[in-house]
């Protein structure tokens, strides 16, 4: 079996986490390592696509305290998954072509996953009022790979019980693409205990996206229909932002 090219993702992630894990973490060390379980919601252009507006992510962060400047710098490597949202439409409200509702649909889904790399700076905030509060901000790059699935099916058969051969048409295909999106992020984090904490952050967010329009929205009364899915498509990168919440756990 050929290893899928994404196979390295979990391997890399495991290796990444094992390194700090094996690193003896003395309390006097300037370095600390954190694992993050992150959930996010997206907004913006991506809402118009067939992505779900959710993000599930795991990330590992290495932080070095910089007492000289009063804060800390950190580097985070994450892997995130953006689920797809089934976009199901019945695109012919007036049904001028006498489509058979039961067998006609236009169904899409897009989903993606990829790495995120973030470099940032954090510093205490309101420490006199709320111990453990920090703000953070930085720059990041997201590398996503996206898969877009289209399945549409039109049934023109007047008689739903006995659709005749050739009187329906449809298509299905998959298209994949990727995007590299630089961005900024910032947020707040709270250290709940020595080992646990929370983060709330905002970042810009964009992903590759496919927009496909079938060209076969037409009624061919006389079978057989021999139309193919020769619709038009265009691709682009969505723009938007994401608000994220993370549970942080000391490695």
């Amino acid at each position, binding site marked *: 079996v050929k290893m899928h090219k994404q196979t390295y993702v979990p391997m890399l992630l495991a290796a990444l986490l094992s390194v700090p894990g094996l690193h003896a973490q003395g309390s006097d060390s300037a370095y600390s390592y954190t*694992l993050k379980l992150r959930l996010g919601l997206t907004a913006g252009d991506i809402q118009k696509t067939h992505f779900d507006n*959710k993000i599930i992510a795991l990330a590992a962060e290495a932080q070095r305290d910089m007492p000289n400047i009063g804060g800390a710098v950190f580097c985070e490597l994450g892997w995130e998954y953006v689920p797809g949202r089934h976009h199901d439409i019945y695109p012919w409200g007036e049904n001028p072509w006498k489509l058979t509702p039961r067998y006609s649909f236009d169904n899409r889904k897009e989903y993606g996953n990829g790495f995120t790399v973030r470099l940032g700076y954090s510093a205490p905030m309101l420490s006199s009022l709320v111990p453990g509060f920090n703000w953070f901000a930085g720059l990041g790059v997201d590398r996503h790979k996206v898969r877009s699935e289209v399945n549409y099916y039109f049934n023109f058969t007047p008689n739903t019980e006995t659709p005749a051969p050739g009187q329906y048409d449809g298509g299905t295909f998959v298209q994949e693409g990727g995007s590299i999106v630089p961005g900024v992020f910032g947020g707040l984090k709270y250290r709940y205990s020595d080992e646990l904490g929370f983060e709330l952050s905002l970042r810009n967010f964009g992903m590759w996206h496919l927009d496909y329009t079938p060209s076969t929205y037409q009624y061919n009364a006389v079978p057989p229909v021999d139309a193919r899915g020769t619709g038009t498509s265009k691709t682009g990168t969505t723009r938007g932002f994401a608000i994220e919440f993370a549970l942080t756990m000391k490695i």
Partner: protein
Amino acid sequence: MMRRNLVLTPLMVLLAAGGLHAQDYTTAVITGTVTNQDGQPLQGVRVTIESPALLGVRSTATDSRGIFRVPLLPNGEYTITYILNNYITRKQTMRIIAGSTANASISLTAIGAQEATIEINAEVAQIDKTDTIVQTSFSADFLEKTVGRGLNGVYSLAAGMMQGAFEQGNVHIRGGTGHGTKTLMDGMTVTEVWGGYNTYEYTMDDLMESVSLIQSPLNARYGNSDGGIISIVTSKGTNTFSGTIRLATLSRSYWSTVQARSTNGGYGYRDMNMPGGQVPSTTTLSSSDALNRNYEVTLKGPIWKDHITFAYGGKLNPSDVRPNYFVNSWSSNDSDGSPWSNMDGRLYPNNRAGTYYKAANGDVIRNPEMYEFNTWTSGWSEIVRSTYNQYALFFQVTPNHQLEWSYTEDKGNDAKGVPNYPTRTHELADWQILKIEATGWNVAYKGIIGSSGVLDASYGKNRNGYVMGNPQGQTFPVISYTIASRVPLAALGNNAYYASQIGGAIGSTNDPRYYLANGYVGAAATNNAFLYNDGWQTGDLYNYASGTRFQRINAYDYSPGDKIGNTSWRVNYQHILVTKHGQHTIDLGASSDENYTQKHTGGKEFRFNAMGRIAKNLSAADIYNPLGPGFAAPPSTYAGKFIVFNVPMAKLSDVDPYSLTQYNMKDSYILLRDANGNITNNNWFGWTDTGGSGTNWLPRMTERYGGVMGRIHSETVSYYLNDMWSINDHHSVLAGLRIDNFRSFDSSATYHKYIQPTLRFEYKYDIKGDQSRVASVSWAQYHSAQPGGTYGGLAVQYLSDRKERYWNQGTATPYLVTMEELMDPANYGFIYQIVENPLGRAVVDKDFKTPISTEIALGYRRNLNRGGFWKLTYINRNWENEFDWYPGDIYDLNYSNGTSQKVVRRVLKNGNGYERSLNSVEFEWDIPFNKRVSFGGSYTYSRLMSNYPSRTESPRADNFSNISMSMDWWWDKTVPGGRDVWAPVAPIEPEHFFKWFMLFDFSSGRGVQQSLSFNGQYRSASFRSDGYFYSRGFMNGDYPEFIASPNGGNVPGSETIPSGWNNVGPREYTLGTYFTSGNDSWNLSMRYNLELTLAMKLRWFATINVSNPFNHRGIASGAFSPSGASGQRIDSYLSGNGVTPDRTPSDPYQGVWKNAGNVNSSYITRMGGRSVSVQTGFRF
């Protein structure tokens, strides 16, 4: 007294070393090191262990290393007291879970200023440093609070665990097969090997104390699993009386948005985005809103305090019909005229399969808007007055010597023999099992030998009467079953499903002769006597009383003597060996898992499997009379009798399920007489056959497997040695060797046997020596159990001699007839031909071996200081010895009528070209934030890949994996030797499975306990767009390019068209894209638990569960063949009835429907919906 309440209620606990330090699967160990405040070990510390779950008090003392160890502890809350002169006595409490080793290390402070006992109330169960097994353990209490009791709760939380659609919803662990998941109940193997079921799925949840999921059988003690192990431990009673009375799972159809309603399409339907937003009209649909419920009771207590205890649990499911329950609830074609519905290789019109509901008046009504997936539907999941009882005795001879006995019976059916689960409709052939009854018992001894050894031994046996729905022999149909078998119809009662099907048609129903009818028999008095006998295809049964149709389920014969079961025994001796270089925990033992099918006794049982249908407009001329004119008696002879008559010298089509032409069908035989003796005009089926001159197909009787005595076994006897070497606080090494001696045999012959050694190694590094951070790396091999599918080959090999017998069914007691009787026209209509094993169509290669998985795992576990943990694991698994069916030799059936018919035998063998691999990341966490709030769950990323063309194990946990199975089934059965091939590799897309809970515990501690839990899941079900090819039938040599090894030229076995097979049978070639688009499913449930103390120990409790409160509706869509390929499809079937095949392959990813046939294969459906259920009862 100082009290420090450090941590909360113990929740999900990832524990260690089940089986290594635990003496068996069913008890736990508490161990630890006692030190002084300077960290120096203290010798001679008196450690006493008490628990309500324990008979008496256990005590021990620490050794020179300060270590103590107490084995053989049942599930429960424990208090450990540490006493040493001149030191402050300390106590701590913990919950321990069977199969695990809990670490209870502590330090004592010399008496000084503080003259007090410090009591620490803490959950201290941490992984022991000698942890070896990746195991997630759940206490029953925790499950009930968060996600619900029982195994389903475990599915809802555990990482690496998928409830796959294959093998009917059984559990897959880390990419393993369903049958490769071993399920243990109190140490006894209860895995049903044919489909990988947990045969004890009806285990009393209220007796269940804990469930452990062992993701990796790393310790050599574990085996016969290429996935993982589920270990269920039930109560054996305690020194105090306790019990529960529970009214469980109260729900109504109308409490759910997905249940059938008069204006709603039901479970899987398209109700949105219709023009005008209308929902489909389902005017005929009327669903019962009866209250679903079941009753449960448990009672536990002492018989002889400190020595003998008992436990009992009983469950009753009253008569209950649950339509279309949870499996395959989406689908498309219903009555659209799809020719693909009937799985006998012919292009029948769709049989109007659908989903059916029981109307208030008892009629079963089809929901016309139920979109079925090509006649796949779950149909009924019916529980008819099933009962479950579980008994256990525990005898503690001394604290060091214990005996256990348990017995369970799952009466899945009432006295009428109605199968209870899962009564799925038709066509679900491969792994369909209708459980009839199961019983099991287990005895065990556990004892402490000397100061360092623990011996445990157990012997368990369970037997299951099943219906296996695999009539085409792809796997061995263990038994078949028909409700009507020798049971007077009147006895069915109105509550039985079948009775409801028969509905008002039941007239004079005491005719004892309907046993030939495979479940569906009309009554003489109704003038509508009919027989519907068909184990193959779906079909309607027409309720002529109500004018409606209803669905039949798989129809099978009943062979009451048939059973399948397994027997398991284990002996394990564990020895703790302390050396100056560390401690060795050595397991030495042997075990056996034997699975068998007990064939029925020869001469007393029969099975048959008829396919075909009752023709309409049947006339006497249609009756084939091979014995010549005048043979048939006047129709009046048969008045009121529903007799299938398979004359001797039957033609091929009578006995060969792979009948080649429809015309043979006409030569099959059925006499269908009404009360007047006239052949009934069977137009109630309403089919519009398209078979040309074969329009009026007659049913035929097809014999499948004959009545022989004996049983077919598969047995794995294993010997193992495992050593866990704890070198020091930081390093430990595990090494294990397991030798599996596998063989398959019957009472007279061994078909194949081999010895398979497997190894496992693990290194663990406790980074800080305090178990807060433990990294591990392991390499291990796991040898799978024999797949159930191989039994088929073994069985038919065993039954390879065709036998024919003739029974006189015209009397209350059928008997074998003599040849003279056979030829006597007076018996016409009463003689039934039994043909045993007409085909011998499959064999198992003598060198066949079961798969081995090799696992490499990297793990890191972090135990949090204030309780809780998180854990990250990377897993890579690769399987060897994968297998599939291949075309084998061609042999001649040589039917008794002189017909020569060549068929291709199928051979099950390992395929070098087949591979499967898994890459997975599991992340688990359980984090208590404070006393009242905790958050836990798991996330599993898995990528399972294989290039299996048809084996069912490969795709898993994919919502559409059923589809490929159905295809597999179709292909294999359609034409003998027909070869189905997928090409190229069918990838399984990345899968994400995110499971979590958030628990809020509001218990006041003043007799009121209440909690609110949220439980969610996200599961991706990815689009699959697999290029594939399959062939069905042989194309008269027309398309050799499709036949010659399309799978890269590496398909073993012959793909050559056998001589004589040209231009026969249905032929279809499909080349294109197999497309499905699964629904990503998001689930959220809310669960509220309340428990009030009424008086003394009497407590009242209630649980309200709201599933999917926001009524999120997932959807799925797809296109397949059958039903359908997206891409290019080439159909040719039944000369004159097909179209010109298009031989041009299209871009598999840019294809267009091109159906030559009358196929509607795309579908869309919506799933999910809010539902509410309630449980309430009392505890004492």
